[in-house]
């Protein structure tokens, strides 16, 4: 097949080639570099300036574990998580019960 066909994906409603993405990415990188080059020069690595910001407090050995990240996200999903987590109970009997339920549903679907 021709080289330009091999990087194309033709779906029923259009087509995609990575070249388009590369062009967009290049433009975005240029823009990002432009913004970065107009930043402040006084930034020093390895000093107090690049420690994590823990709400303005002075914390010894600041290290944010992943459990503290995206807190708002998890909090918004908390009711759903709690309900789903209850179903993932870890008890094998519940898992077998789900199987029986799905067996019944599939039988109903197929035979009726």
């Amino acid at each position, binding site marked *: 097949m021709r080289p330009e066909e091999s990087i194309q994906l033709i779906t*029923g409603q259009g087509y995609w080639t990575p070249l388009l993405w590369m062009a967009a990415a290049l433009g975005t990188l240029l823009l990002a570099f432009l913004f970065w080059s107009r930043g402040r020069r006084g930034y020093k690595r390895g000093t107090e300036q690049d420690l994590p910001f823990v709400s303005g407090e002075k914390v010894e050995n600041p290290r944010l574990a*992943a459990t503290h990240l995206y807190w708002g996200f998890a909090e918004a999903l908390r009711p759903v998580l709690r309900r789903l987590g209850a179903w993932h109970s870890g008890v094998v009997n519940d898992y*077998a019960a789900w199987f029986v339920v799905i067996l019944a549903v599939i039988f109903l679907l*197929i035979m009726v």
Partner: protein
Amino acid sequence: MGTHAPILAIAVPLLGGFATPLVARISRVLRDFWVFAIALFVAVCVGFVAAQVFAHGVTVYVLGGRTPQETLAPGAFPIRIMLTVDGMSAFMGLIAGLLALVAFPFALRFIPEEEGKTLSFTLSLLLLAGIVGLAYTGDLFNFFVFLEVTSIAACGLIGFRTWTSRAPEAAFKTMLLYALSGLFFLMAVAFLYGEYGALNLAFLSRQLRGSALDRVALALFLSGLLLKVAAAPLHFWAPDAYGEAPAAKTLLLVVNTQVSLYGLWRILFTLYGGVLDAGVGWLVVAMGLLTMVVAAVMAVGQQDLGRLVAYGAVSQIGYMMLGVGVGLVTLAGRPDYALVALKGGVFHMLNDALTVGLLFLCVGAVEWVRGTRDLGELGGLGHGLPEVALFFLLASLALAGIPPLNGFASKILIYHGSFQLSPILTAVAVLASILLLAVFARAFQGVFLGPRVEVKPELPWSFLIPMIVSAVGIVVLGLVPGFFLEQVVTPAAEALWRGRHLYLAAVLGG
């Protein structure tokens, strides 16, 4: 050797696996070479088979009487077992071979000697033999036997670390559910045998009439295989299993699940292809959507990196089910958009194997270096393990379907195809993708970014090479999707979509 490649790809890892403890008695280095040589041999064989099938159509390898007329007594039933390899089987074999090449070198250094390394290789080779057997077989009872072989080997690998309390628990639950799924599959085979007196897939496919007993068998097939495939709400074993197995072996477990999914497609498209109605397709689509969403949401609250990636892997099964399910729903009319979705679902099997494989390799590397997978304790590893951080980022972006990586290529096909069937399907799929992106961004930032944390052991190069191979695969599949779609995925998808009569003709002779 070319003509015998299908059976060699099954027999060599089977026998080699059992010979591994004997080889290990001679020398440990020899055992490492032996295991890697077998994995390489399997990869070469599946490559041969795939090349042959993609060039010449369905390949039938017969063990026993070559033609239906070669019988022990004139007029008796021919004694033979057939390996029927069409495009889809060859594709699954390719995935198995590729991931064997990636997983075994990683396992060579990952599992320490005192933890029973030799026996883990025996189990893995047994699992590999079972997986290739599942992909290539054309006989229903043979499928059941290989299904059970993979179940037992997989559970042995899941519960491998018997000194922990989590692994045997995961293995017990998984073995219970796997045994249940295998038994219901066997019951379905028994129903069909009782009705038609045959076990050969092609023969049964031609005889199936859609009677009530056939439908009972279909229901049993569906329930057994959907449990093995980890479709929600039957997915509860999967995060435990993927999380507790040693990271190198989890890749083989993922391929095991995918090849069981292939078994489902084989039953639905080829065996029941003539008598299927759209209800089954909608069931598959609905369970696929449920899997996507449930797994993505559960991943948000995970504290263990391995379980987080495992939920991501479970979620991707939903995409494959959605893509192929769209094809199942419209099997009667066969519109073009459904073929696009079907190709996307099949392509996603390959992409997901590579992506999730790379993610689990990264998790394994992190566990090897820090000894823990608890997200509360990990952090700042990007300074000491820059390669692992880069690969984890790459694989996360690929999993979430970000262009120009391979996940995007298959997901755009699924999105476009399913949109034509119903926009709700596409909306749910895209939302699940975004949710997973958030989950993995959190994992990446928490584990790899942050102030430097000292890491002591250097990663051995046998860890980095499989990761590099997977990463190269991810990038190449993303940048040149059209090539792989035409050469590898289209024969597989067409074999399911319109290839049923070719399959029957190759086995039964027209």
